[in-house]
């Protein structure tokens, strides 16, 4: 018996992964795949796990100086008043805009530029020993995005993105990367064009036009498609997600601006440029828990949301104050009749609907989405928890209803059949 045989006996026969481990890992992967296919969503820019670290290097944005000058001169009460005045003026402009009312067979087309942090390389030396923070490079990977999202719940959409040249968050990191022999980063110019299986555009006709009522619905996360973790910071981000959409009724967009004026903790940044270099007015919410400032840039003349930017609000292990860790510029939005030329096979095809219920009751909270794999689709609604789920439906129907539970009896009780 030689040393390799002995080694092969060591820790041999360990049990395989537990089924829940495997399904959680698979759900995490599917979640990542889906988040790539979905239109750029603000909260996906942030590092999700311990993965991303940025070397601590000085890097300050002009926009931070703007924050300091506004809040530094004005007292707190004065700032809030100025904020409310600006937002209420924008709300007035919004209420006079013409909105398009999409038909069920149309698509919402959007064109944007965005970037988020991605850890893409390791120093060769770190293959031999634990990596130091300075040996991992986080780069902003810019993308030009287009998406076509169907207004009915039954068809695929399309999402196309072109990867740009990765941007280092600091010169020092760039120099470290060069010193390490410039290992490959994200490939610039790569085109991804795929069918979209994300959510349905917001139905503006269903939303209240009273700012307080609208804010309560957002805070309770009770609007289908406007979902996210709890917290004021997320509420600010979700309102930003809704404001992006010019197709929403003018009265709803006006109410969103008025509701933003009333949110605690929102600051006025004054005149700033959006990530595409267009002038606008900035408002921001500092999420102290995560150390990130969320910034929205709007155009007071048209009430359009021009863009967003996330930056670090304090220096620390993740980098210096002001470092931009994600941004988006919304360049175009319109209602169109098709998914455009050169679409991948399957875009615009109809697909089954999945309804994910919070409880084993047809009157419980429900998320409607599309997908061929009901259980996986609904598991993504509860990432990490991976509850037992039961798929039910009516014969011949394209709709599958998925309920939490461990027994097929739930389908019978609700007058449905178990789906294979």
């Amino acid at each position, binding site marked *: 018996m*030689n040393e390799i045989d002995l080694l092969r006996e060591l820790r041999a026969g*360990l049990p*395989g*992964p537990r089924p829940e481990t495997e399904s959680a*890992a698979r759900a995490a*992967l599917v979640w990542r795949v889906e988040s790539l296919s979905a239109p750029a969503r603000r909260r996906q820019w942030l590092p999700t796990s311990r993965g991303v670290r940025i070397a601590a290097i000085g890097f300050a944005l002009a926009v931070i100086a703007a924050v300091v000058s506004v809040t530094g001169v004005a007292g707190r009460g004065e700032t809030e008043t100025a904020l409310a005045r600006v937002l209420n003026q924008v709300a007035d402009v919004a209420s006079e805009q013409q909105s398009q009312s999409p038909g069920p067979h149309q698509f919402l087309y959007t064109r944007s530029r965005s970037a988020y942090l991605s850890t893409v390389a*390791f120093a060769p030396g770190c*293959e031999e020993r634990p990596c130091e923070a300075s040996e991992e490079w986080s780069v902003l990977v810019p993308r030009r995005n287009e998406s076509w999202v169907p207004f009915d719940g039954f068809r695929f959409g399309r999402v196309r993105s072109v990867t740009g040249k990765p941007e280092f968050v600091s010169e020092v990191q760039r120099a470290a990367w060069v010193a390490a022999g410039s290992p490959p980063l994200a490939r610039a110019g790569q085109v*991804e064009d795929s069918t979209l299986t994300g959510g349905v555009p917001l139905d503006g006709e269903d939303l209240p036009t009273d700012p307080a009522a609208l804010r309560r619905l957002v805070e309770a996360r009770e609007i289908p498609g406007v979902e996210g973790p709890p917290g004021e910071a997320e509420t600010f981000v979700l309102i930003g997600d809704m404001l992006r959409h010019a197709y929403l009724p003018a009265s709803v967009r006006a109410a969103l601006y008025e509701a933003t004026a009333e949110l605690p903790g929102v600051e006025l940044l004054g005149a700033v440029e959006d990530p595409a270099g267009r002038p606008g007015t900035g408002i921001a919410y500092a999420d102290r828990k995560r150390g990130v400032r969320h910034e929205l840039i709007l155009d007071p003349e048209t009430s359009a949301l021009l863009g967003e930017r996330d930056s670090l609000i304090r220096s620390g292990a993740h980098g210096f104050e002001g470092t931009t860790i994600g941004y988006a510029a919304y360049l175009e939005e319109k209602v169109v009749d098709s998914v455009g030329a050169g679409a*991948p096979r399957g875009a615009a095809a109809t697909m089954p609907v999945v309804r994910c219920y919070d409880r084993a009751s047809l009157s419980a909270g429900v998320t409607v989405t599309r997908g061929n794999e009901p259980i996986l689709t609904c598991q993504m609604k509860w990432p990490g928890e991976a509850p037992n789920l039961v798929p039910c439906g009516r014969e011949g129907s394209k709709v599958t209803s998925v309920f939490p539970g461990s027994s097929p009896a739930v389908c019978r009780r609700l007058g449905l059949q178990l789906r294979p």
Partner: protein
Amino acid sequence: MIPDSEVISASATAPAEFAAVFDRHFGAIHGYLQRRLGRDLADELASQTFLVAFDSRSRYDHSRADARPWLFGIATNVAHRHHRQEQRQLRAYERNAVDPILDPFDGVEERADASNLRRRLVGALAGLPGEERDTLLLYAWAELSYPEIADALGIPVGTVRSRLSRARARLREPLGIDGAEAEHEPISSDGGKS
């Protein structure tokens, strides 16, 4: 079966295709990480391995039909942050004759049944430089061939050969295995795809 390389190619335009790579290889990757670091860390790192793989799928070398070397390479990289933990666990095993990565609730007897030989082996494994331990365990536990290990770690095959022979020598000494005798053992896995 469609080769992994074609699945990964397809995932450039249809990302959901990548799930097939997960379904084929999750068990093996988890098993390797679990053997090195225990179940809890393996649960986390195996998941992370496939997220990193998905994010870097555009850099996959499509001339490689089998994705295992690539995935084991990523898993090895992801596990690097835990080298010290691995070393501590091996040292504890050597010292106490009890393997700390095994679940205390099953197979207690087996846990305590560590022969002197095995303790010396574990001690020698803990003492290996990280690069040699990676190479050795990709060979002995992940069962990769020399060229596959070279792919996984991004190093020349010759380096694999020299690291492996150094590592084996470092294990043989405390085990009292005669080097000359061991040399008769063919170091055979040069074959396969290259």
